[in-house]
C-alpha cells in the first residue's frame, strides 16, 4: 500500500530520462521562449515563496506576545481555498476591467473604459508570484504558529522585550531564526509546488512564453510522438531547474543565518530590519484583505447578469438555477466529491501507516525513521509537472489502469503526503505512557492503538483528513493528465473557462470549487468538537 505513494516519485526521473531520450533533452533547449519560460518559472515561484515567508514573518511579528487569535482563525479558510479559485478571483479583481479598477473609477482614475495596461498575466509572472504568495502564506503562518507554541518561544521573546528591544527587532533576532529552521522543509515544498502550479499559472501567468511548467504541459499534450517526447524532456528540465534553484535558495538561507547570528548579538535594540518588519506587517494585513476581496469578486461575478464598466456593482443578477445545475448536481460536482472523499480517506490511512511505521522504526534507529519520513514526503519533493507525466508513463507502459483509478492514485500521493505532514507532529508528541497503560491493563497492541491512541488523536486525524479533502478538491494537474481529459472537475472547468475568457462560467465553477473545499474542510474539523463536547482534556486548545 505504502509503495503507492513512494514508488512513482522514486521512479519519476529515471522513467523520464529513458522515455524522452537524449535527443529530445537537447532539443528542448531550442524551443522558442525556452530561456524566458525558465526564468519566469524561477522568478514567480521564488518571489512567491520569499514574499509569503516575509509576510508570514511580519504577521507573526505583529502578534508576538499578544493574542494571535485572529491570525489563528483567519488562516484555515485561506488554506482551504483552492489555488484555482483564488487565481480566478484574483484575476477578476486586478484585471483591466476588474473589480478593483471599477471601485476606483471613474472618481479616482478618471477612466470610463478599461485601461490598456494589464496587471494580470504580466510578462515576468509577478501577478502569479502574488497569487502563489497568498496561497503559501497560510501554510507558513499555521506551521510557524504551532512551532512557536511547541518550542515555547514566547518566554524568550518576553525576555528580549524586557531587555529593551522593540518588538519587531526582538522577533527578528529571537524568534525568526528559529522559525526559519522549523520551516526548512515547508519552504522547499512550497517552492516546488509553486514552480509547477499550472492551474494558477494558466490563469495569472504570462502566455508568450508561459512559465516552464505550462510550456511542458502544452508540449506533453502534443499529439505527435516527437512533440510529446519534447514535453517529457521539458518536465525533466523543470525538475533539474527546480533542484538548481533550491541549491541557490539553500545557500542564501545559510549565508543569512551566518550573518544573522552576528547581527543578533550586536546589542542594537532598534533596527532597520525591525522597521521593515513593522511595515511588512501592514502589507501582510493588506494582503489578507486583498485575498478576501478576490473571493468576494468571485461571488459577484458568479451572480452578475449585466455589469457595465465602470459600475462598482452589477446592474442585474442571474437566477439561482445555475447553483443547482452547476454547483450541486453536475458531473463536475460528482467527480469532485467522489475523488475528494476516496482520496482523502485512503490518503489518511496511508499517512497513518507512514507515521506509525516511523514511530516504530525510531525505537530502533533514527536512520530507519528518517527513511520512512523521506518516503512519505517524496511526492512533494518532485515538481508535479515532473511526477504526474512520469506516473502516466508508468501506467501506459504496463499497468493500463482506467483513467478514474489513475487519477485517484495521483490524488492519493498528495493527500497521503500532506496528511503525513499534518499527523507527524501530534503523533510523535503523544505521551507513550498512554499506550503502555493500555498494554499493562492487558489489552493487545491493536486495541491500545485503536481504542486509546487514535481516539486521543482524533483532532489531528480529522485535521489531516480536512487537509486531504481540500488538497483533492484543489488538484488540477493530476486530474487533468492522469484522468486523460475524461474526468471533469470544478478545477478543470474553472481553469479552462478562465483561460477561455468566459468570466461568469469561470466564476461559477471556481465558486463551487471553493464552496465544497471549505465545506469539507470545516465539516471534518467540527467532528471532534461534536464528539468531545464534554471532554475538556481534548478541547481545541490542547491539541
Amino acid at each position, binding site marked *: 500500500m505504502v509503495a503507492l505513494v513512494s514508488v512513482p516519485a522514486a521512479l519519476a526521473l529515471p522513467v523520464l530520462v529513458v522515455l524522452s531520450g537524449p535527443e529530445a533533452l537537447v532539443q528542448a533547449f531550442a524551443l522558442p521562449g525556452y530561456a524566458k519560460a525558465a526564468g519566469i518559472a524561477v522568478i514567480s515561484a521564488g518571489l512567491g515563496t520569499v514574499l509569503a515567508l516575509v509576510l508570514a514573518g511580519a504577521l507573526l511579528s505583529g502578534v508576538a506576545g499578544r493574542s494571535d487569535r485572529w491570525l489563528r482563525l483567519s488562516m484555515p479558510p485561506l488554506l482551504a481555498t483552492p489555488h484555482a479559485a483564488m487565481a480566478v478571483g484574483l484575476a477578476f479583481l486586478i484585471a483591466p476591467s476588474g473589480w478593483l479598477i471599477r471601485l476606483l473609477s471613474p472618481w479616482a482614475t478618471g477612466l470610463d473604459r478599461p485601461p490598456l495596461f494589464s496587471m494580470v498575466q504580466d510578462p515576468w509572472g509577478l501577478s502569479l508570484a502574488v497569487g502563489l504568495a497568498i496561497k503559501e502564506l497560510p501554510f507558513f503562518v499555521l506551521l510557524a504558529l504551532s512551532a512557536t507554541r511547541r518550542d515555547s518561544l514566547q518566554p524568550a521573546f518576553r525576555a528580549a522585550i524586557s531587555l529593551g528591544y522593540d518588538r519587531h527587532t526582538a522577533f527578528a533576532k529571537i524568534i525568526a531564526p528559529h522559525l526559519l529552521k522549523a520551516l526548512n522543509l515547508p519552504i522547499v515544498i512550497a517552492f516546488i509546488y509553486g514552480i509547477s502550479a499550472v492551474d494558477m499559472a494558466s490563469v495569472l501567468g504570462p502566455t508568450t512564453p508561459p512559465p516552464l511548467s505550462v510550456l511542458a504541459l502544452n508540449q506533453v499534450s502534443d499529439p505527435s510522438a516527437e512533440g510529446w517526447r519534447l514535453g517529457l524532456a521539458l518536465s525533466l528540465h523543470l525538475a533539474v531547474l527546480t533542484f538548481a534553484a533550491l541549491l541557490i535558495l539553500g545557500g542564501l538561507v545559510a549565508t543569512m543565518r551566518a550573518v544573522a547570528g552576528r547581527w543578533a548579538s550586536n546589542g542594537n535594540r532598534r533596527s532597520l530590519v525591525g522597521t521593515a518588519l513593522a511595515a511588512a506587517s501592514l502589507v501582510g494585513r493588506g494582503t489578507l484583505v486583498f485575498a478576501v476581496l478576490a473571493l468576494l469578486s468571485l461571488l459577484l461575478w458568479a451572480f452578475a447578469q449585466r455589469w457595465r464598466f465602470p459600475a462598482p456593482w452589477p446592474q442585474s443578477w442571474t437566477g439561482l438555477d445555475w447553483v443547482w445545475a452547476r454547483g450541486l448536481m453536475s458531473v463536475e460536482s460528482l467527480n469532485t466529491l467522489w475523488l475528494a472523499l476516496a482520496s482523502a480517506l485512503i490518503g489518511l490511512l496511508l499517512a497513518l501507516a507512514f507515521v506509525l511505521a516511523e514511530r516504530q522504526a525510531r*525505537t*530502533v534507529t533514527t536512520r530507519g525513521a528518517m527513511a520512512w519520513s523521506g518516503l512519505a514526503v517524496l511526492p512533494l519533493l518532485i515538481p508535479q509537472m515532473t511526477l504526474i507525466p512520469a506516473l502516466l508513463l508508468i501506467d501506459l507502459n504496463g499497468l493500463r489502469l482506467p483513467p478514474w483509478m489513475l487519477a485517484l492514485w495521483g490524488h492519493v500521493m498528495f493527500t497521503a503526503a500532506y496528511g503525513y505532514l499534518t499527523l507527524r507532529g501530534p503523533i510523535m508528541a503523544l*505521551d507513550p*505512557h*498512554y499506550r*503502555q*497503560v*493500555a*498494554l*499493562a*491493563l*492487558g*489489552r*493487545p*497492541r491493536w486495541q*491500545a492503538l485503536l*481504542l*486509546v491512541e487514535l*481516539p*486521543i488523536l*482524533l483532532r489531528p486525524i480529522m485535521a489531516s483528513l480536512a487537509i486531504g479533502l481540500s488538497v483533492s478538491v484543489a488538484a488540477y494537474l493530476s486530474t487533468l493528465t492522469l484522468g486523460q481529459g475524461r474526468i471533469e472537475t470544478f478545477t478543470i472547468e474553472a481553469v479552462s473557462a478562465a483561460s477561455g475568457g468566459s468570466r461568469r462560467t469561470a466564476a461559477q465553477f471556481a465558486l463551487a470549487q471553493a464552496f465544497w473545499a471549505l465545506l469539507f474542510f470545516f465539516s471534518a474539523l467540527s467532528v471532534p468538537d461534536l464528539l*468531545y463536547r*464534554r*471532554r*475538556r*482534556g*481534548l478541547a481545541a486548545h490542547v491539541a
Partner: protein
Amino acid sequence: MSLDLINLSAHIGAEPLFSGVSQSIDPGHILAVMGPSGSGKTTLLNIIGGFAASPVRWTGEVQLAGRRLNSLPPQRRRLGLVFQTPLLFPHLSVGQNLGFGMPSGQSAVLRQATIEQALSTAGLTGFADRDPESLSGGQRARISLLRTLLSQPDALLLDEPFSALDEATKADMRAFTAAQIRNTALPTILVTHDPRDAEAMDARRFHLPPS
C-alpha cells in the same frame, strides 16, 4: 504468588546501569526502590513491565508466581502499572476509564455494578459519567489506581505515583494505596525518591545502585 527478580543487570549502550539485583516480594508486601535520578529506577520498572527497548540491554530473570515473564509481551504479564501522572484516557468518561481496565466477558449489569463499587471505595460515588478533566489531582490518582486494580493484575508496579500530588493529598493517597495493596494481597514495587513514601506505607527499602 510472589514477584521475584533474579540477578537482574542492565546496560545503556556500553554503560553499566546496575547489576546483580535479586529481590523477592511476597503478596501484600511492598518493595520501595529508591535512588537518585539516573540510577536506573525507571529502567528496572521497564524491564519488569516489558517496556525496555534499545539502547537498554539487560540480563537476568523476572518471575511472577513462579511464571517466567522474560519473553512475554507487556499485555500478557498481568502486571498493574501506575505512573506519576494518572494518564486517564481523556476521550473516555471516568466510568469508561475503569471499564477499560476490566476483563471482558461479564454482563453489562455486572460491569456497571463493579464500577460503582470501585467508585464508592474511592469516595467518588456517582462520578461514572464525569469528564476525567473535571476531577481534582487526588481524585484522578485514585481512579488511575482503581483502573489498574480492576484489570486484576498479579502484581503492582508503582512509578513515583505520589510525586505530582500536593502534601495533603499525598498522605491521603499513601494510605489509600497501602490499604488497597493489603486488601488485594498483591506483591508491589514502589519506585520513589521520597523516603516518607516508604515509611508511611511500611515498605522494605532497596537502594539503587546496590552498595
